[in-house]
């Protein structure tokens, strides 16, 4: 492997995962690690289950394929991902006016 590629591969990124109730986990990851690793780390450290959750970038882009690597989806250092339980787009109440 070329030294610059090796360097890229070894580059560590600080990533955070924010969930509901303002709970957060942060850790360092290598860019060739899969997104599933981030999810596993969050599940473990926050003692939560994956059910009903969706990993999203800080701009709201869903990260659906967890077999992709951090480098492939171009997460950047210090990015805060969101792993909130899926919520309906609008509150589950009837439309009305007041």
């Amino acid at each position, binding site marked *: 492997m070329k030294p610059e590629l090796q360097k890229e591969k070894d580059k560590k990124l600080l990533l955070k995962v924010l969930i509901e109730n303002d*709970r*957060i986990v942060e850790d360092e990851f290598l860019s060739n690690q899969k997104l599933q690793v981030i999810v596993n780390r969050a599940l473990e450290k926050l003692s939560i289950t994956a059910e009903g959750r969706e990993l999203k970038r*800080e*701009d*709201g882009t869903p990260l659906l394929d967890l077999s992709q690597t951090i480098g492939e989806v171009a997460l950047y250092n*210090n990015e*805060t991902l*969101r792993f*909130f339980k899926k919520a309906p787009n*609008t509150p589950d109440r009837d439309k009305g006016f007041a």
Partner: protein
Amino acid sequence: MERYLWHEQEEHRNLYASELNILKNGFGGDFELVKLFDVQETNGRISAIGFLKYDMDRSQAIRINFPPKYPYSPPVIITLNIQLDQGQNIIAMQLQNFGKGNQYNDGSMCLFRKELWNKDQHGLGWVLRRAQEWLKYATSPEGFPKDKIVEEIPAHLPHVGQVLLPKNFVLNQHVKVTNIVLTQFKPNYYILEQNFIPEYPFKFKMNAEIFKCYAFGDNVTLKELFPNISPQAIITFFNKYLNENIVEGEPVRNIGLYLPGDPNPWHFFKIHIQIDGNQVFNVRLDYYLTRNVENELYLRTKDVFDDLVLKGKRVTIIGLGALGSEVAKSLGRNAVGHFNLFDFDIFELGNSVRHAADLFYIGEHKVEVVKQLILRTNPNITVNAYKSDVLNDDSGTLENSLFNSDICIVVTAEDSVDYFINDKFIKTYPIPFVFARVSVGGLSGSIQVVENNESACLRCLSREQLDKLPVPKGDINFVELSPEYGSCSSPALPGSEVDTKEVAIQVTRVALQLLLRNTISKYPKLPGTLMYWHGPKGSKGKAPFTWEIKNIKPKPDCTFCNGNTTI
């Protein structure tokens, strides 16, 4: 008392840090922070200015304002023109409006419908991505595609006030310049009433001002005349379109523009001109947005109660106290077009706590008071106000009113009036009569719809004791009131506005159902003709807050309503 500011809350500590991180860390290279304001400068709000990259290599100065109650409400993004010195300090800043719609006059972007915002799913990053897309459209020659327009397009010019036009007002084609008098009813708010509506809807006239109005062709738009409101644009407008030298004439000009091709054809302005010698020192324009009452007033209610039908209806109301005033005002708000009002009473201090009017009207006749309320609801309504006692009227006014009306509502709570109307008029005038009253304390009420040959009259009902008000549960001791100062009438009865209004609202609904019953209205039909309100305490065998609805047919042998015997 402590203010709630989201960023000071322990429960948002991590959210705050992550949002701040987007600003400071550059959003993956798409944002360059110029200034993060000290909260002392922004009344506690988190606010920042920076450059947002979009469309590959372009960038736009924006200001990001977090609301104090974030994330329950989204951040606002405002587009700016800024100038920086060499040290990257802001030395000049102004709002930038792209003129492509989807942007408010304060420069903030309309990025999404507000109901789309979800505090758990969205954040600053999501808003910035939408802002990047917004900028692509706003800077393209085509502007926003139709499916991307998320809010109404704001007015082309920011306005300082409004002008109410009661109805459509079209200038004859040959008129190029004319004077129009607008009446000011509060600062910066005017109504076109002179030579236009028969009666002045507002109590006070602050001023009456002449606006010199210029008519243009079908193809001229406001945008063309005033691309913006810079001093140069105003001077150009005078030279090019009015052929007038702005330095000649009054320092403040009231002008109106009639643009028949424009969906909103009337525009009014005050132009403030400062002259220094023969030169224009400064020009400022105040724009008054025109609102058409006839076209706009009933947009929110027309699908429920057809305004085109109701504006042709005439309602006679006898008694304009707590019930009658609310009924009249509410019928006006629901588009009934004509009223005949009867009451001889004066509006006094004690009335104001449960009447549709307030203390402002003290000392005036109730019919005039309610007339004002109706006209302030819609100046196009016609209201005949009769300061008369219907039992002492020898002019035939009441009979004439009933002859011309579609319905009569009797809300005096006086037996003498109720029975006079019932006994003498229900057979003569083929219209529905609605009688209503509330009990002492306002704790129960009743409504009777009387229509010859259709429903029982008050005499039919009294034979079965059905004309009685429900008796509220429990003992209630009301303090007896003394007669109001200066009045020789009986003391008023106690009762609150909130309980009385329940009955008034139901009377209004009944009246509207009766007025619309032979139309294609989809509003539910009147379910019965006798209604009892069991009030907040309930009454014997009846639960609190319930309406009981019955249908009682006329007694075949009733001499008052069935026409078998003359009285």
